[in-house]
């Protein structure tokens, strides 16, 4: 039984770490926050299993606190981070390509996230978020979306009502 618990914990930990990859890749801020949400559920399961595996009932309290507070970070994100620039919404790579030579640190990242993602062909079309001020941002957005086939339809549809 013990080894089953520990195997499950290791397994859940690995799914958690794999999910953290989404923070890195984005592309929108909301995607990054999802990983924080993933943490609430998976870490609670890990804590409950650890409590059983190491017979430490006090860990139930830790899991209780985590479950109780799991929504706060995401709430803070949706309530506070409103006027974020489009760079933070996943357009950072494109602006880098347009404005200046890309430094080595973000070059690696931008190259990776601009790559078409295999099975998920639709991935390239997302993240066409508009900033709080629609008109100056929209030329930026449409410039970006030209990479995908439906880009123009997208930016036309989502034009006016942002923010």
């Amino acid at each position: 039984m013990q080894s089953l618990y520990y195997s499950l914990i290791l397994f859940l930990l690995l799914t958690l770490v794999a999910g953290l990859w989404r923070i890195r890749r984005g592309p929108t801020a909301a995607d990054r926050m999802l990983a924080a949400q993933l943490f609430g559920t998976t870490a609670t399961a890990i804590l409950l299993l650890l409590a059983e595996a190491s017979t430490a009932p006090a860990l139930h309290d830790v899991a209780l606190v985590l479950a109780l507070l799991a929504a706060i970070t995401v709430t803070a994100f949706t309530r506070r981070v409103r006027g974020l620039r489009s760079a933070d919404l996943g357009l950072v790579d494109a602006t880098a390509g347009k404005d200046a030579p890309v430094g080595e640190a973000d070059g690696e990242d931008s190259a990776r996230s601009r790559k078409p993602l295999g099975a998920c062909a639709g991935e390239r079309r997302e993240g066409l978020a508009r900033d709080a001020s629609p008109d100056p941002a929209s030329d930026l957005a449409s410039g970006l979306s030209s990479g995908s086939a439906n880009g123009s339809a997208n930016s036309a549809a989502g034009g006016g009502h942002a923010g």
Partner: protein
Amino acid sequence: MAWLNLLPLAIDLVLALTLLWLAWRALSSPDLFRAVVLFIALGLVLGLVWVRLDAVDIALAEIALGAGVTGALLLAALAKLQPGATDSAEPASAAEFAAALEGDPDTPRPALAERAATGTAPIALGSTLDERPVGAAAGTAPIALRWLIALLLIPPCIGLGLVVWRLWVPAPGLTDLVAARLDESGVTYPVTAVLLNFRGYDTLLELAVLLLALIGVWSLSPAPHLDDAEPEPALAALSRLLAPLMILVAAYLVWIGAQAPGGAFQAGSVLGAAGVLLRLSGWRLSPRATGWPLRLALVLGVAVFAFIGLAVIGLGQPLLGYPAGWAKPAILAIELAATLSIGTILAALFIGGRP
């Protein structure tokens, strides 16, 4: 059972590597928002690490703070630092904007600067935040300097690693000493005994430091203007459901701290998180309560602690030396007051600025 010994080690290795990976990415990511989210994840992984280190108290505090306060604090600060964020304390003026752009000689953007001057610039691009993605040189030191610093840092850190390695003789530390005198402490849980009895002066000063940090924040600026929209119905319902439960759990943690992991700092963290949630869902303290009642709640922990610590001198005891038989009620009184103060201070730190 080789399995049984290897599996926990594998878990710990995964945790340690995740910790290092997250720290590295959080500190080197070109995007500030991503850095903050990675840092929040780092805090939660640390919570699991504390559990693996048998430090359940620390895990409670880390998870309560990491999930409830730190993340909200950093995200709110990030939003306020945005040049044109709608809920920033002061809108960035066009002149300030242009000055910020001029400060970057390596990014000539005449069109943008022009738009900035007319006040219609897309806040999307250049900014006083360093996240103009124009190469590593902008946000960090030159690459040669970075490598030099890295090389210079490696020897002291190898030294530190060696010290840790050499210290690794099995030693009980102060465990036995604490266990021997646990009966006199008034509680049956060693960490609480250390916090509130054996090293009470330390905890008293920590509470004072918390208060000092809040005084620092209050002295910098008045409270930010509240222009929160009405909360979404789901959020309003959630805060109505969770905030009372958080207060209940905080009380539970204080009570259980006498014999199991829990206590004032963990409970205060949960209470602070309740304050953060209430604030995020648009709740605000009535103006009548922001005067002396708020200040009383803030200083109550230090005041009760110091009062009891000094009062025992009158009974012929040393400073903070509780007389026999009185340790348990004294600790409980101090813990309740400290929980209230820590929670209020944390919530006030999140709100920022004096009311």
